[in-house]
């Protein structure tokens, strides 16, 4: 434990309004902490730059609200809540799966989806599913709430569209994927407690043997979680065959920019990303026949 506890402050206002007011009034001074599974690791390693923290473990942020059109997942919902929610399991099974892949059991009990997204690691497990399910984020501050498509959230490596005094209020998923084909896979160094080397989630549909709709999200192949827009374009209207796969691989490696890092290599990521695409298409073709 390499930090000096008395050098840090952590306050627990307990109300969303108070937190938002604080973030606004004392802009840039307070760092929100939710489940702490990121921040406390930095703290233990003596690498936490922030000295003043404000807890955003709040009831207002930890509800999952389901209605006829959508499911709204509070930013403070834990991965345990998400994976066990029957509505999410039914309508957004890829997200339930991604939540189950995140860390281990104890960290799922504390880690939150909002914290995960705000931390903006390109290797995060849930973002691919959010792309696949056309998620929108509800952001909140003293100025009120605003909604943006998840595609607009990540601006660069660890840079998000959050204003300095804004929090992720909810992740909103539209209930229009119940009949969609789906595919998700995480490739890590082991079966649990692994930061992904590459992860993918996709929804889509085939009509008369051709790809009619497709949404693919991928992690660990770019400075941010990535929606594979160009690869999707290649696949739209195409039949899942060897030629399509070859072309999709080619376009994928042009739109993704994996790197060598402590977990894996760029060449491995590129190769496996292409393999996962291929597996996805095989799954889609098999499921729709």
């Amino acid at each position, binding site marked *: *434990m390499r*930090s000096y*506890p*008395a*050098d*840090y*402050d*952590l*306050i*627990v206002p307990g109300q969303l309004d108070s937190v938002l007011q604080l973030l606004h009034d004392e802009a840039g001074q307070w760092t929100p*902490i939710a489940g*702490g*599974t990121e921040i*406390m*690791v930095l*703290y*233990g*390693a003596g690498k936490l730059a922030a000295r003043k*923290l404000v*807890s955003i*473990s709040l009831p207002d942020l930890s509800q999952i609200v389901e209605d006829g059109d959508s499911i709204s997942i509070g930013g403070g919902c834990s991965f*345990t809540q998400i994976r066990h929610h029957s509505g999410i399991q039914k309508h957004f099974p890829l997200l339930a799966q991604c939540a189950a892949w995140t*860390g*281990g*059991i*104890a*960290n799922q*009990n*504390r880690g939150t989806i909002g914290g995960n997204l705000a931390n903006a690691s390109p290797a995060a497990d849930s973002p691919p599913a959010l792309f696949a399910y056309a998620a929108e984020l509800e952001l909140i501050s003293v100025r009120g709430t605003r909604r943006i498509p998840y595609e607009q959230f990540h601006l660069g490596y660890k840079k998000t569209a959050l204003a300095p005094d804004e929090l992720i209020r909810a992740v909103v998923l539209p209930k229009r994927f119940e009949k969609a084909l789906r595919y998700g896979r995480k490739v890590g160094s082991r*079966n*649990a*407690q692994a930061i992904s080397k590459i992860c993918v989630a996709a929804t889509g549909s085939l009509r008369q043997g051709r790809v009619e709709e497709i949404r693919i999200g991928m992690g660990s192949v770019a400075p941010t979680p990535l929606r594979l827009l160009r690869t999707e374009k290649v696949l739209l209207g195409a039949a899942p065959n060897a030629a399509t796969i070859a072309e999709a691989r080619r376009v994928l490696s042009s739109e993704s920019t994996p790197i060598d890092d402590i977990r894996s290599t760029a060449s491995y990521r590129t190769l496996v990303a292409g393999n996962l695409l291929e597996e996805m298409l095989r799954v889609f073709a098999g499921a729709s026949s």
Partner: protein
Amino acid sequence: MSVRQFSLRVNGVEHRVTAPPMARLLDVLRHDLGLTGTKEGCGEGECGSCSVMLNGELINSCLMPLAQADGATIVTIEGVCGHGRLNRVQRAFLECGGAQCGICTPGMILATLHLLDRHPCPTQDQIQEGLNGNLCRCTGYMRIFAAAEKAANSDSGAIK
């Protein structure tokens, strides 16, 4: 202002702790409350030897700041016995050889209790998943799986 007062209910006993808000719950348990059964193996939330129950959920106490645990109900390894008798999980670990060096054992027992709470008759897959945040370097996990299964099959309630 570097310290404040917090209250914790640990193993059924109310405590008032005066400490910095960012004191790790692990350190509070071990040093302020003298409950050294909870261990530090990594300080980064990977090994699970610091696992405790907080409001009924398994968490890594090395990642929990005291201020966020204020008012919580906590169970550590010292609190899993019933009336001075071994809990069925502890008994099963003894019978099956689930503990070798023993350093992962407190966390592993709590994780097993957490698992059996949610899955009273767990499948092998559920056992393996339920323990996936608790690393053991000695056993290769096999005796621990056997202990979890044995505990699930034994009568509920304390046994000795």
